[in-house]
């Protein structure tokens, strides 16, 4: 391949193209992308507009009529929506920072070239990423059951005197969901940081060490600023992911106890397919996620200082 590159790298004598050739090139280019444009328009943009229209309609099943902003007003007086929103924001504010800090910590520790068994640790911490969300959710449900392994372990270590109701206590159920998501995604984020760390100049650390910077100072004044773009990227991806949280909640707690773990996505699902279907109101709730994604992404870009 490299040979070919060298040969053809020479100035192309046929560089001047006629209008017809240019037109053909341009037209061919559109042919290459047409399927993608049609697909995205049909399965993303068209439904997005439909959902917006739906959010101004109300009724059961297919009998819908326009009701203006009624659905949006309804949001404020809907206790189930308020708890779904609160829960989702709690997941977001607790889980995403904890996971990112953990992932950063792992990646910094594993970036040390003198560390032994590095490969093993990397693979082990990354391994949860290969499981399907439903599969690991079900495993966590059993691990955290009243007579599950976690309780047995805690009892044997005498950390608790009686089994904890992980899945039926509002606080503990949220905690279980947060721990589950953290288990599944920390390794995924770690991989991003690890590869970004390889591009950080080692001499910078050396210079800092000579200047007497501690490991913690090096972390905050070299590692974090150098990884800022990738931290921004992963935090946006995680934010969007957490706002859409569904599989875990559905399979670990089904939103219970008393909606204490209900996520917005799960509420939308319930409104559409579990309760008497109200597609209009469900679409309104779904637009709340859209608005949150946009607002939070803007905030994260601002906080990170717009650096690309």
């Amino acid at each position, binding site marked *: *391949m490299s040979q*070919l590159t060298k040969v*053809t790298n020479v100035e192309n004598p046929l560089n001047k193209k006629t209008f017809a050739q240019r037109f053909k090139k341009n037209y*061919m*280019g*559109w*042919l*290459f*992308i047409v399927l*993608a*444009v049609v697909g*995205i328009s049909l*399965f*993303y943009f*068209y*439904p*997005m507009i*439909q*959902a917006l229209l739906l959010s101004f309609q109300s009724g059961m099943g297919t009998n819908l009529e326009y009701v203006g902003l009624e659905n949006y007003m309804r949001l404020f007086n809907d206790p189930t929506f308020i708890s779904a929103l609160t829960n989702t924001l709690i997941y977001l504010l607790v889980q995403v920072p904890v996971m990112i800090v953990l992932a950063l910590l*792992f990646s910094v*520790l594993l970036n040390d070239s003198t560390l032994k068994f590095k490969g093993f*640790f990397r*693979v*082990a*911490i*990354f*391994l*949860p*990423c*290969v*499981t*399907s969300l*439903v*599969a690991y959710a*079900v*495993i*966590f*449900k*059993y691990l955290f*059951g009243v*007579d599950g*392994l976690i309780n*047995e372990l805690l009892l044997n270590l005498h950390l608790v005197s009686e089994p904890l109701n992980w899945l039926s206590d509002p606080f503990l159920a949220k905690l279980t969901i947060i721990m589950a998501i953290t*288990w599944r995604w920390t390794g995924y984020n770690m*991989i991003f940081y690890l*590869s970004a760390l390889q591009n950080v100049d080692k001499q910078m650390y050396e210079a800092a060490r000579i200047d007497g910077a501690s490991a913690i100072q090096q972390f905050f004044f070299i590692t974090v600023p150098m990884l800022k773009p*990738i931290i921004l990227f992963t935090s946006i991806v995680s934010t*969007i992911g957490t*706002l*859409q949280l*569904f599989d875990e909640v*559905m399979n670990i707690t089904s939103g219970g106890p008393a909606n204490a773990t209900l996520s917005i*996505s799960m509420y*939308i*699902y319930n409104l*559409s397919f579990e309760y008497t279907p109200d597609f209009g109101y469900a*679409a309104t709730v*779904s637009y709340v996620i*859209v608005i949150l*994604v946009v607002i939070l992404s803007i905030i994260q870009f601002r906080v990170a200082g717009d650096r690309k």
Partner: protein
Amino acid sequence: MKQLKRIATYVFLSIAALVSIFPFLWMLVSMTNKSVDVTKGRLLPGTHLLENLKVLFGQVDIMNAMINSTIIAVITTFLTLLIASLAGYGFEIYRSPGKDRVFSILLISMMIPFAAIMIPLYRLFGQISGTAPFLGIDTLAAALLPTVVTAFFIFFFRQNTKMFAKELVEAGRMDGLSEIGIFFRIYVPTMKTTFAAAAIIAFMNSWNNYLWPLVVLQSPDKLTIPLLISNLGSGYTPDYGVIMTAIVFATLPTAAVFFFMQKHFVAGMMGSVKG
């Protein structure tokens, strides 16, 4: 002091590794245990493996779900790769301001939460059901179609195409290949690793997809693996040993891909970021 720090690092990482691996080990152990033992959190292998397998392949008919999941995942992967690579190639090789604008519009779709488009999609496929039942609600086609085209993979292929030697395109033209010919004869073979990485991720996403199949697939013979597991768990008398065996079967393909193709796997996961 330094020694102490080192030991603390190893202890910390070992605990993290144990926590990460433990659910997998427990899943493998539970596959051999009775339902009661699984709920009790038994840590030792039992002798119930054959019985679990019998139920799983008999009453539960996991084979059918495996076939459905495989059909959906294979077709999705193929179509995703085809459409996204054509587009990524098109955007990069035939670059023009107009196309760049279209590209950034397509990227917006990455921000669209699935929950927001789920209901209109459901209604869309409901309407299709009337005229083309083979594409409508409760068909495998409906379960895979909306997941086939994603901006992520278009972006992924475009980023990777930046590393493709554009001179090869000119060389192909000189050799008299058609534009499409250049794509299939030169680009695809040269970019094998990119395709491999994308294929792994597309397959995994499809194999593990839950919410949309849950919405669109209804009859028991159309269930995919995640739906089957979810259903087993929410039944009246769930048999936990059988469920754990089903989870092992659900995890096997993706775990195998990970272990045999680690490099491509990680490259795919990281996807768009490099470059």
